[in-house]
Each structure stands twice: as C-alpha cells, then as structure tokens.
C-alpha cells in the first residue's frame, strides 16, 4: 500500500517541485520537497517501505532534470540510509533527527550534483555554488522540514495505525 501510494504522492511532489518550488528561489537555491518527503517518511516509526520511496522519488526527480541519471537516486538512498541509522538511535527527538537528515540529505544531493556535472564536463564553481545555491537551499529545506514532517507523520499514522494493547 505504501509503495503504491508513493507513485502518485511523489509524482505529484515532482510536479510541484518543477512547476512551483523551482520558481521560488532564494538567491539561486530552491527547496527539494521530494527529499523532504523521503526523509520524513524514512524517519517514521513502523514504516517499512522507505527504501522504495527513495528509489521511486530518485527516479521521478530525474525525469524533468538535465542532471545525469542516478544523482537524485544516490542522494535519496544515502539520505534514507542516514535516516534509518538515526531512527534506531535518536528516536526520542524525531524533529532533531529530521533536521539532521534534511541537512545532510541536501549536502548529499548538491555534492553529488556538482560531482556529476564535473564528471560530465560541465563543472560549476564551488564557492559560488556553495554561497548561491547550497546554503539558500539548506535554509529553505530546513524551513519546510517541519510542515513536511507533520504531513508525512499523519500519512504514516493513517497507513500504519498504532497498535493498542488489550
């Protein structure tokens, strides 16, 4: 069910990302709502399909982008790996874990993007990229982490209702 739901949900988020979010930059950085959704989903307790979400989100994000295939996929898989690691250790402070995962996930995504562009002969200046793209994107992602975490939390509770001891 959660895997089936990922296709329309993440597909819709990719459309929102391309049509709206990418048009609202701070300097040249934009938020990544798919990364936020995947990270928030991976941090939910009792959720099992988080790797599937990373793969589906990574593939869907590649479709409208000129970035080489696999950049978003690898970044989201790394993000989910980190979220999975944190979920087992700092579960008492889920919002802190969300902030940490989003922060690292953004760095993974941008680092891999820069590496891929460099490898394909289209290098970007590192300092300008950091100042004008990565730092503003980090700010936007951290700002949107809370509402996305709440929304995805509600969705996870709906799909995986808490067990009641009788």
């Amino acid at each position, binding site marked *: 069910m959660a895997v089936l739901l990922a296709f329309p949900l993440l597909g819709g988020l990719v459309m929102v990302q*391309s049509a709206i979010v990418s048009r609202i930059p701070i300097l*040249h*950085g934009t938020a990544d709502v798919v990364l936020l959704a995947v990270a928030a989903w991976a941090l939910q307790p009792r959720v099992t399909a988080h790797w599937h979400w990373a793969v589906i989100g990574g593939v869907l*994000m590649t479709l*409208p982008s*000129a*970035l080489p295939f696999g950049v*978003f996929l690898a970044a989201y898989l790394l993000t989910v790996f980190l979220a999975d690691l944190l979920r087992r250790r700092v579960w008492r402070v889920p919002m802190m874990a969300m902030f940490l995962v989003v922060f690292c996930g953004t760095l993974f995504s941008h680092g891999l993007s820069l590496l891929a562009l460099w490898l394909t002969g289209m290098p970007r200046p590192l300092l300008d*990229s950091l100042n004008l793209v990565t730092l503003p994107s980090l700010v936007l992602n951290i700002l949107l982490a809370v509402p996305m975490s709440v929304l995805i939390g509600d969705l996870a509770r709906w799909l995986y209702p808490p067990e009641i001891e009788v």
Partner: protein
Amino acid sequence: MLKFNSPRSILIAVAALLAVGLIFMALSGYLTPISRLLLDPLVTAQGWLSTRYLAIQDFVTAPADLARLRQRNAELEAENARLQAQVIELQQQLAEDRVLSALLDYVRANPQNQYVTASVIGRDTSPFLQYVIINRGSDHGLRRGMPVVTQQGLVGRVAAVAPAAARVQLLTDAATRVNVRLQQSGADAVLLGQVTGELSLDMIPQSSAVQVGELVLTSGLGGDYPENLLIGQVSGVRRLEAALFQTASVQPVVDFKQLRIVLVIVNFRPVDITPLLPTPSVP
C-alpha cells in the same frame, strides 16, 4: 309628528347647540389643553402596544427571514466567488493575449523563420541547472538544438525532446556557450552563462573598442544558432593589459525568471562541425 316643545326636541336642540359649541371651541383652540390631556396617555399607550406587537411579530417571523437571508447570502457569496474567478481568468487571458500579440509582432517582423509557440510549464528540478520545460515536443516538430526566442530576444535552445515536451537550456545556464558579435564594434566574442544567473562575454580581442551599451547579437559562427538574434547589451567592460582578451558583462533583454510563452524556430537545423575540428595527430 315631531313637536317642538316636546322634551325630546329640546334635548336634540341642546345636543346640537353643544356640538356646535364644541366644534366652535375646538376650531378656536379652546379645547387643545383638554384634548392634549386626554390624548397623550392614549398615544403613549398605543405606541407601547404597537412596539410590543412589532417585536412579537419580528420574533415570530424572524426565523423564516433569517433562513431566507442566509440562503440569499450564500447565493451572493457563490456568485461573488464565481465572478472573482472569472475576473482572474480574464486577467490571465489578457496577460497571455498581450504576450501572444507581442510574439505575433515578432513573427511578422521575422518572416524568414518558422515558429512553434510553446508554454513554459516547469523548470529543472536541480537548482544547479538553468533549464525550462515546454509543452511542445517531437510530435510538434521540435528537434534537439533548435533555438528558442521570445519577442525580446534569444532564450536558449532545445536540449532534449520528448513526444509532448522538451527541455530548453537557457542562456543563463553555466554550460551555455554562444558565439556572438558586438553590433557597434563588430567584435566577435563568446557568451558564457554563470552559476549566478548572469551573462558574460569572453574572448573579445584586445584591439576591439567595446563600449558599454553595445548590442550583443548571435554571430552564427559554429552553426549552433542563426545569426542576428538579440541577446542583450554590454553593461561593463574589463580590459587587462596583461590578458590576451577582454571580458565584459551582459545585461540580457529577456527576463529569464518571467518566461511564460516562447517561440521555437523550427526551420533552423544546427550544424554539427565536430568532424571538421582538428584532432590531435598521432605520432
């Protein structure tokens, strides 16, 4: 027969005289204090009664009126919302019509080209890349490398094509390289996109007297773009004595953040000059 001296006749006569007298006194104003004394309590009582009656009538009939007013209010609110949506739609249509009208003027002014009109429906999901997605693709005759313009000037070129959509690389993308010519000085140069979203010129010969405000046009060299497409104006020149070439910054004529509708020049085919480029000889 009525007798004038009968008691009844006398009573009638007295009553008539009294009536005439009262009328005369009333007309003369002698009865006003008396009538005020009598009427004031009556008026007050009637006012009190009328007010209470109207209050009771309102109380009894109000629910029906309230329901009717609420229904009317809901109808008017719905009507208002519909009209507001219509106004927004018409405003959007007007803005689109203005853009299309300007594009039509451009098409009429440049009849040598064939165009396909496309709407910008999205941007690249990576903030490192300056690409837009348009709603026309190979089904509409678009091919990779076709130039994309607006009525203001050059926007970029088609980088990838799907059946119903295409991805356009903007001039501001950091990987963009366009051979250009400066209109007044006639100097050739290379236009570069920046990660900052700005445009710059490189490879301007030191001997060229480049002026601020010069128009930057495509030169057509390299076969990637048709010649004489407007790109922008020189906004600053940097000349170092020790450097081989001058550099300059360019103010583009197109607002790349507000792209809505673009024209794809479909009768231009880019020339692939890769086979003509010299390759390092093998010893």
